[in-house]
């Protein structure tokens, strides 16, 4: 009612302004003329009557202005006026404007880009139909809440559960070889990743090119509600052991390898020698529930055809086959489904008491990948987010102090406007409009900058991954919500910091301002205190960023220097990728293994070549181990003696090749290795654990369990009831660089019975130079072997500790450097402003005999105080932050003196220069000029 009429009146006022003006004119004119006519009727002359009527009425223009205000019409009008005036002011101060706009734009862009990338890669719901009804299904056993499923278990739940419209299986990916693909040259390396220090193992030139295919159940695409780009998707009928082999191509692979040739659909592609029909192409960047885009999609049944899975293993309840995901039927809640599957799991335990004794099921929402992040990834994410957040804060503080400086300069202008009758509210609005204009310009500049940064970020991440790992989706545009958020923050900062000086400026003592006395003789305005506070805050934030980045970078450097316990610089690890693809009989594989060893060993510069079932960096596999003889110490006998130990089958020369010293006893003899005698070499830590204070040599270990636990194809764990300890080797760090392996056992490898994917070659010089020669040998032995090779030291660079601290440190130091630039600009601006403001005072001081150095000291003192205060706060805050970082990233040196004092000194020095440069100008003040200023 009233609100409506008010809105209508306001709307009318705004839209029909000219009509309203005309009507207002007519109405007032009518009033004055009617009044005059009355006067004429009373006998006043017409001219005189009009004059008297006008005087009686008072100021017509003022009345009109009040009428406009009463109707609310003024709001828009004065807004346009303010904006126009603000634009003029900004244009008149291009230096101030560009610095403020660029500063904020940088803060907004970096925040938008980083948050968008994180959102797109992790938080954003999967790009599928109704992601909220997708659930991930895990097999739980005591100690493992996120276990995978065997194929018969998947089928059991798929066929019996009524909660899902579809329950699909993601059966992992596999690198396949194809003779139909053109050979590609050496992989393009990411420049950035290389500069940062990441070197992922490279395919040796001359070896076969792998293609990544992922295997999914036939109902997978039906569950996701996907639409093909060309042809059709996979259907349940494709996923039968007897059906003809079909494969689906990703749009990215289709573009890259086949240049979007439409004839590809329906053609034949040979994978591991088996002819597959290409049935369709998925849209470019389609990822389904994966974190990246594979090259090919194939049904689970095809995994049997290409040799990735034995047909009988589809019946094996202990063989890990994949991860199920389901779509809940409409109206079925997650807890309903959980309850139903709990009942089914209980029935399964009864039906298969041996294999499924401990099986349980856990359902989790499967909207996105956030649940897949481990604590270390979250630490990295947290560090990156806080760093860019701090950058936005620094940018806002910087603009705030710029605004404060400007308000001081405009003190006089504002006083004049107040003196000639501008209302205070109107002035405030004017000043705020300018702040908001700056933020809006920054937003306009920030959006394209964010898009560019995002592109750079994603392209770099993408090119850092070997193409064999699949591609990550590239089409990510800056997220509107995040952009709006960053813009809002900077607008709020503009308003908050525009308001303080505006309030202050709009209540000056008009007289003193007009006389330019407001700034005389070091009179401390609270404004300068606020500026000091801002500088101190920026300084502190910047110091936190720089110190954390130094801590992280030094931590990552230390990771590279850690003695892993084995030779890493002069050993190349060669790995045959997915040898199952070749479908060679055992004898041929053994022959290839032997030929390869002979070939590599014949390359000049190679000292020795050893064989191992696991690579020494990160490739750990666990087996339960327990001493056969009970420990002598009474305390140890109480606890369960079984523990998990890393294990590897190795040749006798393994220890010598990797320079792992044997501390006691001996290594296997060649005949023990060949005959796979029940002997074992254990690590020091293992010996200490089972036989503390005793000689482990001659004791016996039970390795493995009679009944296998869940296992991956081709990796059945060993079982040796009693194995004699013949040697104790020094501890190594194979699983995690930050600590030695808790226990590790080396088993004898028989070269005539076991082939391995891993070969280790020790070289005399830098092994990188020998990689081409190794590639040549691989090609000579068997050109269809896909072999990757890398020095062990570069493989260490894939350790999570190194990756997290290196990436986190680099991000923090880039952001910190930007922050440093902003702080310098802030300090420089503040001191220049102080000098400009106190020119008059300095002139008087110098006229009275003050020397240049005294003036310099005076000014520098003013500038340095907030800097020192900020540094103090920054150091204390950094100590807290480093404690947080250390809690997330074990292995950082908490109170690293270099990081704290070196960085503080550097920052302080830079700030000092930024102070002294403008302060020097104060000493150049000519007293005569300064005094004449009045």
């Amino acid at each position, binding site marked *: 009612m009233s609100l409506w*009429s008010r809105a209508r*009146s306001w709307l009318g006022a705004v839209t029909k302004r000219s009509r309203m003006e005309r009507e207002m004119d*007519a109405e007032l004119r*009518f009033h004055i003329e*009617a*009044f005059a006519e009355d006067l004429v009727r009373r006998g006043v002359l017409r001219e005189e009557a009009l004059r008297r009527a006008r005087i009686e009425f008072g*100021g*017509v223009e003022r009345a009109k202005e009040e*009428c406009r205000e009463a*109707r609310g019409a003024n709001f828009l009008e004065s807004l346009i006026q303010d904006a126009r005036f603000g634009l003029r002011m900004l244009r008149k101060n291009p230096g101030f404007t560009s610095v403020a706009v660029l500063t904020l734009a940088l803060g907004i862009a970096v925040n938008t880009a980083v948050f968008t990338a994180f959102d797109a890669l992790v938080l954003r719901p999967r790009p599928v139909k109704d992601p909220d009804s997708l659930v991930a299904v895990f097999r739980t056993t005591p100690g493992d809440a996120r276990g995978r499923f065997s194929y018969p278990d998947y089928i059991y739940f798929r066929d019996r559960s009524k909660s899902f419209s579809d329950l699909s299986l993601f059966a992992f990916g596999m690198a396949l070889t194809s003779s139909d693909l053109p050979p590609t040259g050496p992989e393009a390396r990411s420049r950035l990743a290389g500069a940062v220090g990441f070197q992922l193992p490279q395919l040796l030139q001359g070896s076969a090119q792998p293609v990544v295919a992922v295997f999914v159940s036939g109902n997978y695409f039906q569950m996701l509600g996907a639409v093909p780009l060309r042809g059709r998707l996979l259907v349940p009928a494709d996923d039968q052991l007897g059906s003809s082999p079909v494969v689906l191509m990703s749009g990215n692979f289709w573009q890259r390898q086949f240049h979007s040739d439409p004839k590809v659909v329906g053609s034949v592609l040979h994978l591991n020698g088996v002819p597959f029909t290409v049935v369709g192409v998925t849209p470019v960047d389609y990822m389904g529930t994966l974190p990246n885009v594979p090259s090919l999609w194939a049904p689970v049944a095809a995994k049997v055809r290409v040799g990735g899975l034995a047909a009988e293993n589809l019946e094996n309840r202990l063989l890990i086959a994949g991860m199920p995901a389901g779509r809940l039927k409409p109206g079925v809640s997650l807890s309903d489904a959980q309850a139903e599957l709990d009942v089914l799991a209980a029935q399964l335990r009864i039906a298969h008491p041996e294999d499924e004794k401990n099986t349980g099921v856990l359902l989790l929402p499967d909207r996105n990948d956030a649940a897949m992040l481990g604590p270390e990834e979250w630490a990295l994410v947290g560090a990156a987010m806080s760093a860019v957040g701090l950058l936005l804060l620094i940018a806002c503080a910087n603009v705030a102090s710029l605004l404060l400086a400007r308000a001081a300069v405009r003190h006089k202008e504002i006083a004049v406007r107040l003196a000639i009758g501008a209302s205070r509210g109107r002035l405030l609005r004017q000043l705020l409009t300018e702040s908001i204009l700056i933020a809006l310009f920054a937003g306009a500049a920030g959006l394209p900058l964010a898009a560019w940064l995002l592109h750079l970020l994603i392209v770099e991440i993408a090119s850092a991954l070997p193409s064999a790992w699949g591609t990550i989706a590239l089409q990510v545009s800056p997220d509107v919500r995040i952009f709006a958020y960053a813009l809002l923050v900077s607008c709020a900062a503009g308003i908050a910091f525009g308001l303080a000086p505006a309030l202050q400026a709009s209540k000056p003592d008009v007289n003193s301002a007009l006389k330019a006395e407001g700034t005389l003789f070091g009179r401390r305005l609270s404004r300068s205190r606020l500026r000091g506070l801002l500088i101190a805050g920026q300084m502190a934030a910047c110091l936190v960023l720089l110190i954390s980045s130094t801590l992280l970078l030094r931590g990552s450097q230390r990771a590279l220097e850690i003695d892993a316990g084995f030779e890493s610089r002069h050993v190349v690890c060669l790995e045959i990728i997915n040898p199952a693809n070749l479908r060679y009989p055992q004898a041929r594989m053994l022959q290839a293994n032997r030929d390869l060893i002979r070939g590599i060993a014949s390359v000049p510069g190679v000292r020795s070549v050893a064989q191992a079932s696991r690579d020494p960096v990160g490739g750990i596999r666990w087996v339960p181990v327990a001493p056969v003889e009970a420990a002598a110490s009474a305390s140890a006998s109480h606890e369960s003696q079984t523990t998990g130990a890393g294990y590897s089958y190795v040749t006798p020369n393994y220890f010598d090749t990797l320079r792992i010293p044997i501390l006691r006893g001996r290594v296997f003899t060649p005949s023990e290795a060949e005959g796979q005698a029940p002997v074992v070499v254990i690590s020091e830590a293992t010996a200490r654990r089972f036989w503390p204070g005793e000689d482990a040599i001659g004791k016996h270990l039970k390795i493995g369990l009679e009944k296998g636990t869940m296992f991956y194809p081709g990796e059945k764990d060993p079982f040796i009831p009693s194995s004699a300890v013949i040697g104790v080797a020094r501890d190594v760090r194979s699983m995690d660089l930050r600590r030695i392996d808790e226990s590790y056992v080396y088993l004898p490898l028989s070269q005539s019975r076991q082939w391995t994917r891993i070969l280790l070659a020790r070289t005399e010089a830098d092994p990188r130079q020998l990689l081409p020669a190794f590639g040549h040998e691989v090609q000579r032995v068997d050109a269809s072997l896909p072999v990757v090779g890398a020095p062990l030291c570069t493989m260490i660079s894939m350790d999570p500790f190194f990756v997290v601290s290196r990436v986190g440190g680099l991000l923090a130091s880039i952001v910190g450097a930007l922050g440093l630039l902003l702080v310098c600009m802030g300090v420089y601006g503040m001191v220049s402003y102080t000098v400009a403001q106190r020119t008059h005072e300095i002139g008087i001081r110098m006229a009275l005999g003050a020397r240049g150095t005294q003036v310099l000291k005076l000014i520098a003192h003013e500038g340095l105080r907030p800097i020192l205060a900020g540094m103090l706060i920054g150091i204390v805050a950094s100590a807290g932050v480093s404690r947080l970082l250390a809690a997330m990233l074990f292995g950082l040196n908490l109170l690293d003196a270099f990081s704290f004092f070196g960085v503080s000194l550097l920052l302080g020095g830079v700030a000092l220069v930024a102070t002294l440069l403008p302060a020097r100008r104060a000493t150049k003040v000519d007293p005569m000029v300064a005094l004449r200023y009045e």
Partner: protein
Amino acid sequence: MDKQMELLQGTLDMLILKAVSLGPLHGYGILLRIQQISKDRLEIQQGSLYPALYRLEHQGWIASEWGESENKRKAKYYRLTAAGRRKLQTEAEKWNRMADLIEGILGTTAEEV
């Protein structure tokens, strides 16, 4: 004629509402009617009349339309709306209560305290 009194703050709106409650009027007419009712004892700033009219119209208590004046000229006529009538009633009650109260206070004698 008594000496003219200045209008108490905030009462102009009420007087305008009262004036137009007796029938539609143009701005000048409102001025004349208030003066007539008050027997010329109230002094009204003519310039402040129109902002008040615009404000009241903006708030929906009066409505306006163009019509013809007594001497055949185009003039803007204001009339009271239903909301304005209610507003006038509550304002008048408030005013009367306040006047009684003030009168009571001012009429208090020493014995009564």
